[in-house]
């Protein structure tokens, strides 16, 4: 596989990852969200493997495998179990202003390209053009966490942000050192257990997973 061909495949994958980010932003059904999230993880894993192949860096295969296990299998499965156990799989989130959210999303993508343009100039890697997409994925995950009001969707937004960070590490530097990636993966797994416990705590205290119920703590006077 020639370098330019690999770069092109990678750009296609980056575009698809960006597409899934927008998909997450507007998908209202919970299972739909879960599927898109798993797809995003799969695309990320393939992209990492391709970069590893073209750059001849074998530690990226381990990263790709790690992504595949955690982001495509373990986390969606844990979320699936939680959704099933909490019986919220039929819930549909009512969202207002989907066009506005999309518009803000597009502005964030443009902003990311603008922010990353000086860094693109400096980089010599084949993956340099995808760094802006990585930042955009982080920003869109953030936007999703702000606009959504359900605990499960906020968590998916959080995990999508982590996907963006991981993508940034592969596209800017061919991946962080393995120690760091393992540590980050461990942190994400601990976080997964914590939000699992949280869903039950929120459900038992508020009798819903809707965060609108949580507006008790405000500035008093």
């Amino acid at each position, binding site marked *: 596989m020639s370098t330019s061909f690999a770069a092109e495949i990678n750009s296609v994958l980056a575009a698809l990852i960006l597409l899934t980010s927008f998909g997450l932003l507007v998908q209202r059904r919970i299972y739909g969200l879960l599927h898109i999230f798993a797809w995003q993880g799969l695309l990320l894993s393939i992209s990492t493997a391709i970069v590893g192949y073209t750059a001849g*860096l074998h530690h990226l295969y381990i990263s790709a495998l790690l992504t595949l296990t955690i982001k495509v299998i373990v986390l969606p499965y844990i979320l699936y179990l939680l959704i099933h156990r909490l019986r919220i799989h039929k819930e549909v989130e009512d969202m207002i202003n989907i066009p506005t959210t999309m518009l803000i999303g597009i502005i964030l993508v443009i902003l990311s390209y603008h*922010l990353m343009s*000086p*860094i693109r100039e*400096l*980089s010599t890697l084949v993956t340099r053009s995808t760094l802006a997409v990585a*930042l955009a994925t*982080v920003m869109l995950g*953030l936007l999703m*966490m702000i606009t959504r009001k359900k*605990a499960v969707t*906020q968590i998916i937004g*959080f995990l999508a*942000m*982590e996907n963006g*960070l991981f993508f*940034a*590490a592969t596209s*800017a*530097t*061919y991946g*962080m*050192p393995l*120690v*760091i990636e393992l*540590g*980050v993966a*461990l*942190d994400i797994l*601990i*976080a997964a257990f*914590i*939000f699992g*416990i*949280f869903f039950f*705590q*929120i459900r*038992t*205290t*508020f009798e819903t997973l809707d*965060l609108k119920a*949580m507006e*008790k*703590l405000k*500035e*008093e*006077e």
Partner: protein
Amino acid sequence: MVIFALLGVNLISAIILAFQGDRRHAAELNILGSAATFAVSLALAFRVYEEGPFITGDGFFFVDAFNVYLCVLTAFVSMTTAVFSRKYMAHERKHGKVGHKGMRFYHAMFQVFIFAMLLALLTNNIGVLWIAMELATLSTVLLVSLYRTPAAVEAAWKYFILCGVGIAQALFGTVLLYFASEKIFGEGSKGLLWTNLSAVADKLEPTVLSLAFIFFMVGYGTKVGLVPLHNWLPDAHSEGPTPISAVLSGLLLNVALYALVRCKVLVDGATQSHMAGHIMMIFGLLSLLVASFSLLRQRDIKRLFAYSSIEHMGIATFAFGLGGPIATFGGLLHMLVHSLTKSSIFFTAGHASQMHSTQDMSGIGGLIKGNPLAGWGLMLGVIAIAGMPPFGVFTSEFLILTALIKEAPYIMPFFLLGIVVAFAALFRRVMPMVFGPAPSNQKAVKLAHLPVLVHLGLVLAIGLYLPAFLSDWFHMALKILIK
């Protein structure tokens, strides 16, 4: 070796307490673990004092004057907090606020939290620093929701989400930093070691590092509790158990600021400008002003002192941003005295709310009659934290102010305004609680006075006379922070 002992003690204590944490002697075990940590941290400090900074564990750990003083502080405050928590948590348990599992979880996570902070302080690797900061958040999230009240669950969720998002930005900053350093060091962990990076800081790409600093500022700034990223802090401090509020406020915020300052040193070296310092000054001053005016509106005693923590972290951030030897010295000293004072205030505030079964300040009164030591403890703590002489906070704030008048006199009025408003707001609230009439439901509670007395005594001693070894230490740290 010392470092492994330091980190190992906490991990072993955590594992033992995970199984034994609800037994009769669990609290004593917790104290023992923390005391052992403190003893080892002292040994480490003596080594640094005698032999200077050193790198160990194949470059993985790095100990210098800057982090070793925070290590000793962390170990010390966690020890006194463990002493305080023995009687406090026994009271909470007697009143059915926590159960068996809760106690086990509480004790184990307390030790994991200390472990995470010490790891963050001691590691030389910027990536591991990030991982340890995240671990410190994760270990305290479920402690904030320990009481399972709606407000506690909400506060913990807010803490989890906001700090998770914040710290993710810091990871992006770390990626950018690695991107810049990879050009010099190539692949591998070498490019993330702080000692390596600071040696070649002037060769790092300035545009990348400036961008990275923005992400570090937002990321670690969220954990420091800087305005406008502070929303999680008052909630987490007011709803969690008081010993956790004390260590969050006294230690975690310091560690986050430490991470930020380490990054600033690298960015300063690369950009050869005051860009990072100016950003820190803006965030610091904004935090000081917003927090001191928010103090006026508080009703909950722990929320009040949480806002006071934001104010003081703002002052310290501002001092490091201002730069120069005097302000940086003031910032280092401020981190130390704020940590000691604020944790002692949280101890007495916890006692006060137990005596009156409420955290609402209008329900608390007559502390000085009900329990003179608690009353004086709170009063003196507030006098100290408001920056009155002869306490140590006065010394550090005075140093920062002196540097400010010299460097940027036009900012000085805003800085003073913040301090004065905070002073007024604190006294308006605290005077009735200490000297006002006692409500009828006031009851006697077994109190742990020793930690409060020790902390306030130390702050007073530092204010009256800065020991030579402490100022030597700070001077050694200054050499690292100012190039």
